[in-house]
């Protein structure tokens, strides 16, 4: 595209053009890049280095090698937070995926009111988190909350204490987050469903395939790229979970819903242990990276 503008293809004009292009390109990127470099790129790189340093608000940074990691391995809070984060992801990822896919398939048709349902399902995702957390906290209220009233009505004699119980606080968080996120992923699935050619279903119907067979053999395989993307996004977002927990349970009761991000926040910003918190952050990053890489590998193998 560059060479066509250069009517004379003499090497000198070409190199001048290249320089002009470089200049123009950078001038476009620069306004954003300055902010991005100073406040995203530099901190990302810095956090990698900080993980190997001892540094708090008052001391000068000092290189300590793996000390932070050793301390982390001995810390009970770290293991609790890691376990809780994995617990959350293990609930949030599959449930959101299934709910999003189910609703997308149900709503991917011309039907009266379908637009309203799509809107209603998507709205929780853009509702402010504080409102979501506050409302669900009340819905989950153990004695007279609507959730437990409903459970009693259908015959559950002693319904769980939800956010007041160390065993049930995490499930309560997972339910809330699935409700909040499924609409977003449903939109991604709806976009994916639009790309499946209708002829495939026509042909399958001619061959006498049942609706279930059509879903299993046409819809699901055709949606594989979407599912792959959804899985990665969901996994990353589950491991990053922070604000929902912070607002709804503050990690409690006890440490029953303390997650990694919260621990980083507490250690790094509240306690000012910059080095130690960066070590935890690195663990979080490595986990997210590993999961993404593994999912990429699986995806590639399936495509072959």
């Amino acid at each position, binding site marked *: *595209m560059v060479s066509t*503008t250069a009517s004379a293809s003499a090497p000198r004009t070409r190199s001048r053009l290249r320089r002009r292009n470089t200049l123009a390109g950078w001038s476009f990127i620069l306004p954003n890049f300055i902010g991005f470099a100073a406040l995203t790129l530099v901190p990302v790189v810095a956090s990698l280095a900080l993980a190997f340093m001892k540094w708090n608000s008052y001391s000068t940074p000092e290189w300590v090698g793996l000390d932070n990691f050793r301390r982390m391995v001995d810390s009970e809070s770290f293991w609790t937070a890691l376990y809780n984060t994995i617990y959350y992801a293990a609930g949030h990822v599959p449930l959101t995926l299934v709910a999003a896919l189910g609703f997308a398939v149900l709503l991917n048709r011309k039907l009266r009111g379908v637009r309203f349902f799509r809107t209603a399902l998507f*709205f929780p995702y853009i509702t*402010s988190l504080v409102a979501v957390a506050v409302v669900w906290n*009340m819905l989950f209220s153990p004695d007279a909350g609507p959730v437990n009233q409903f459970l009693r009505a259908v015959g559950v004699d002693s319904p769980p204490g939800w956010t007041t119980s160390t065993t049930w606080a995490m499930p309560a968080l997972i339910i809330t987050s699935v409700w909040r996120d499924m609409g977003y992923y449903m939109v991604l699935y709806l976009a994916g469903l639009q790309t499946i050619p209708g002829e495939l279903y026509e042909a399958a119907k001619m061959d006498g395939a049942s609706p279930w067979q059509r879903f299993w053999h046409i819809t699901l395989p055709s949606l594989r790229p979407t599912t792959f993307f959804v899985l990665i996004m969901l996994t990353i977002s589950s491991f990053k979970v922070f604000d929902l927990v912070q607002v709804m349970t503050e990690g409690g009761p006890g440490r029953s819903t303390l997650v990694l991000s919260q621990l980083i926040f507490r250690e*790094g*910003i509240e306690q000012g242990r910059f080095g130690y918190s960066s070590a935890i952050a690195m663990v979080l990053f490595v986990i997210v990276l590993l999961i993404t890489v593994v999912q990429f590998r699986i995806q590639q193998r399936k495509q072959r």
Partner: protein
Amino acid sequence: MTATATTPQRRDGAPTGAAPGRPRTPRRRPSAVAGRIALHVLLTVLGLAVMVPFLWMVTSSLKLDSQVFTIPIQWIPEEFHWDNYTRIWERIPLVTYLKNSLFLSVVITALQVLTGSFAAYGFAKVRFPGRDALFVAYIATIAVPWQAYMVPQYIIMERAGLVNTHLSLILLQAFGAFGVFLMRQYYLTIPDELCEAARVDGLSEYGIWARIVLPLSKPALASLALLTFVNTWNDYMGPFIYLTSNDLWTVQIGLRSFVGVYDAEYAMIMTGSVLSVLPILTVFLIGQRYFVQGIATSGLK
């Protein structure tokens, strides 16, 4: 699930003006009709279940505190206490919070859209060495969890003396990689021949961006603007970490602190929640299709 018998009809591309419920094939088996009804019932039940938290929020906001947790639940309040919606303005400095939220959302959205679309042009339409490597750096940081670098960010802000200012949040959120990514994806769908023709006509790169690419990318700009606005409005962690003075707080922080202090004033808490969601609902209903397009653009490819 006989209802799936209608699936092949749902391909888009049919004029949306056609009544959505009308069958396009004249022959319809009764089982298909029954399936359609069953599907409607199912969807209505599920839709209502999803909406319950909102319904509960709105009805509770119109009750007295003592009526919020009753057994059985009153889905329609005995008497409507609209005065909750007037009293709340005296209870918390909601006007200040709303102003702060609006200020941050508007400034951050404007900067993000402007710098994002500008940078995206550099990435999508100008060819120069190192461009793709730079773009990979942008993408890579999207994948890095924000929590992993929030501490260094905080240190930078602290050293710059910007903690507890709105400027810190503006700087942190206005230059995100997401806007660049979203706009670039959209610019890639604009044919290069258009820019080429403009170049031949002597338009500068900035002219091409301003007069050709920008007008063509209105839907993407709208998507980015709406998504950024809503994200900023709803952001909890940023203001939570950086803003300590009450007069700088956003609606989210203000509401959360109200809940923390007056945790038994259920009705008032719900009133505040409704008021915090209302602006987003308005923005969402106006720009609904841009939200969906934006998500689809950033989500695929």
